[in-house]
């Protein structure tokens, strides 16, 4: 089967030749498989919306090609692409009822009336709005409007659904509920979803694959697990959750281990050898929850002595800032278990354990 959406070396520059020239996308290539829940993740202004608008046909690429199921989309206007959008601010038609909004696409496609009515009913059921069919958008809450926008975009049965930060205007509880629901709807309908967000938690929890973007470029594409555990660079590592970065030099090699010595003179072993030479400067990367905390220990066993500087309590877990005795400050995170034996207070002395499996060497 042909890939769902393919973007080939897309460049999009706004205001070419003016003083306000902005390159929103710089040589972006993406392959999105059909039936995939694909997420574009990146900070505000990195070009996510622009990418969606190019796929929808609202903008034309300055250079490059977009293919939809193997077909070139060049110059095809939005109304001739089997793609629908859930807009960031919903863009519901204020002069139409909920049902009329949902029926809009089907009517433009000249579907028979009974089929339209059936689909609209089905869609409203899918988003749990059956009893609000005759309301106007202005009489709905934000969450309900969001569902109407979703139903309206799904009703014509697009091959690809584009969602531009659809949950960002909702409050936390609703947002979390909608994540599950969206994911479920995607699985039920089998439509390819391209979802845009700047919220890493949202991206990790919903996506089959994620493309992390910054400054109009794709930094990394991969499954949530890949992206979280094996970020290719510091930007990705930092954008997806908290991270410790430890500058070090490669000191030598052991069987499938890299021996690194930190700037502070500490020796750390990293699983995997990679493509490094003795003397190389590298950055070691470590997720805070992978740092193990102990009350007792001996430095000889690989445990490092340190002191708790800061404690931030999050309920299910606690985050610590720890100063090791060589002066390095690292972040650690620990789940709050029932007995509280592993809870530490500010100023307390402790030992941290950094396993060779948990450390990664980052590309710069």
């Amino acid at each position: 089967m042909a890939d769902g959406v393919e973007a080939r070396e897309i460049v999009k520059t706004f205001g070419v030749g003016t003083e306000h020239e902005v390159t929103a996308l710089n040589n972006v290539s993406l392959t999105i498989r059909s039936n995939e829940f694909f997420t574009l993740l990146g900070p505000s202004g990195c070009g996510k919306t622009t990418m969606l608008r190019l796929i929808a046909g609202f903008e034309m690429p300055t250079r490059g090609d977009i293919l939809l199921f193997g077909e070139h989309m060049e110059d095809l206007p939005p109304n001739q692409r089997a793609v629908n959008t859930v807009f960031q601010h919903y863009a519901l038609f204020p002069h139409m009822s909920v049902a009329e909004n949902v029926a809009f696409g089907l009517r433009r496609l000249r579907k028979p009336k009974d089929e339209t009515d059936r689909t609209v009913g089905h869609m409203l059921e899918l988003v749990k709005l059956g009893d609000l069919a005759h309301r106007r958008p202005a009489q709905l809450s934000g969450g309900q409007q969001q569902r109407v926008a979703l139903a309206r975009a799904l009703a014509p049965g697009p091959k690809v659904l584009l969602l531009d930060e659809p949950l960002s205007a909702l409050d936390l509880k609703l947002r979390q509920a909608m994540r599950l629901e969206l994911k479920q709807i995607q699985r039920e309908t089998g439509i390819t979803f391209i979802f845009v967000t700047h919220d890493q938690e949202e991206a990790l929890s919903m996506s089959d694959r994620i493309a992390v973007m910054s400054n109009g470029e794709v930094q990394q594409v991969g499954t949530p697990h890949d992206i979280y555990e094996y970020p290719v660079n510091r930007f990705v590592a930092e954008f997806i959750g908290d991270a410790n970065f430890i500058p070090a030099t490669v000191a030598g090699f052991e069987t499938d281990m890299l021996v690194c010595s930190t700037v502070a003179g500490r020796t750390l072993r990293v699983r995997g050898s990679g493509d490094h030479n003795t003397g190389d400067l590298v950055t070691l990367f470590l997720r805070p929850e992978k740092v193990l905390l102990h009350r007792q220990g001996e430095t000889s066993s690989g445990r490092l002595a340190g002191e708790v500087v800061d404690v931030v309590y999050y309920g299910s877990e606690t985050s610590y800032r720890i100063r090791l005795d060589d002066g390095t400050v690292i972040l650690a995170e620990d789940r709050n278990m029932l007995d509280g034996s592993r809870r530490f207070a500010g100023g307390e002395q402790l030992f941290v354990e950094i396993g060779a499996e948990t450390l990664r060497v980052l590309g710069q």
Partner: protein
Amino acid sequence: MISLPRNSRTRTWLGLAPAWLVIGVFMLVPIALMAVISFLEANPYGGVHFNFSTDAYVQIAFEYDLEDNLVFNPIYINIILRSVGLSILATVVCLVIGFPVAYFITLQPPSKRNFYIYLITIPFWTNLLIRTFSWILILGRNGVIETPLLLTGVIDDSLNMMYTNGAITVGLAYSYLPLMILPIYASLERLDFRLVEAASDLYAHRLEIMTKVIIPLSMPGIVAGCMLVYIPSLGAFIAPDLLGGGKRLLLGSLVQFQFATARNWPFGAAIAMVLLAFVVVALMIYARSARKRALIEGDL
């Protein structure tokens, strides 16, 4: 807003007092005077006799024949119908021209829009009489339209465009076109163009985007524009006099004639009351559409 809840109603009314005073002095009192005059007897030398009489209204549809019997006289009814008809026609012409113009301006970059709006308001800086007079030069015998056609032999006799219903309609439409464009522009400018994108995303082509999204959403401006053209068209007398040659009397000219020339104040006032009735009907339609609109937007 700081207001004491207990007497906030009174305060609101007091606050509005100046507005009521202005409306009262400049609108209600004159209309009431007109209404009173329309029920008095005419004084042939101008002014009125203070005797109650419905003659003025009877005169709209009937006249006395030689034996003093009331017989039906359609002349004024025809004037009323023609006025309403030509006003509606002028409104339609303004709408057909004004909507695309307003839409065009909306599509311009914001910096250019004000310039176009300025161009549209320029005609208001000159006297309507003079501007209407120029239409005689355009439409008239040996005018701007006829002369080249005559010279090139496309036509070999005058088109007789002057002093027709068509000429009056053109004059009316010309006079009030800006009043159509401005409210429609105001409406279109507020229109959320993301809705246009949404419609296009949902397979609407250009015409459907226009008829299903843009026109329905600019309805308040369209209705307001139609009111602003229709109402003054009904009472207009400059365009009908100059371009209709006074042969085709309209309501406005008739009222003006009754007060200024025929000196039949009650009859003039009665005609003015009829005029007012048509305006009130139009305003009621307007109010209904505004209410419906408020319902749609949910701000009840």
